[in-house]
């Protein structure tokens, strides 16, 4: 029987794999799915969106490399 820890890891893996699959599908010609760059670019159109996305990027670096 699958332990709860393994189940947790599997769910993380499935979600992250789904994101890679979406990016792959988005890069096909004529796809209606935006690439991660396109929807991030869309969110960064207003200045506040740009600042928040940039802060989120920096926080990730701090979280994984400095603490």
């Amino acid at each position, binding site marked *: 029987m699958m332990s709860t820890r393994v189940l947790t890891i599997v769910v993380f893996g499935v979600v992250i794999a789904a994101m890679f699959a979406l990016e792959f599908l988005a890069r096909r010609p004529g796809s209606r799915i935006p690439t991660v*760059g396109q929807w991030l670019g869309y969110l960064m159109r207003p200045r506040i969106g740009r600042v928040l996305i940039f802060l989120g990027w920096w926080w990730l670096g701090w979280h994984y490399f400095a603490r």
Partner: protein
Amino acid sequence: MATDDVPRRRDGRRLPLGAGRGIRVRTAAIGIVLAGYAWAAGSTTPLTATALVFVLIPGVVLAVIACWWPPERIPAPDKLDIIGVSYWAICVAALFEWEASAYKDNSLPWHPSLTDLINPLLEPHIIKSTAFLVWMLVGWALVRR
């Protein structure tokens, strides 16, 4: 040399003779500096001032570039397909929900957070340095958006 091989600016104008080589040399030099910086950053100990400074510097440099010397940006789409975006929204929401539930449970061994799963993977120097380099390149990609 075929006409199409002539290095051009984004607006289609020709670059001066030798500019293509100059750009390649500059790109290679920047790549070497970034790789060296990432290698040094990968050797820092977490929870130290040195590690914090190594993370602060790229953030400050990119913020300064974004504010005072913004590069030519890749135009964002005017609108997005709502169905297409909803697939992303579901994935992002699922990831945050699963991470939040782990955080709420204090990241117990039976429901570890993504951080607790990733941190051991980042322990080898080469992996941590590579991840740091990728993080910096993602930051540059964001500045160009």
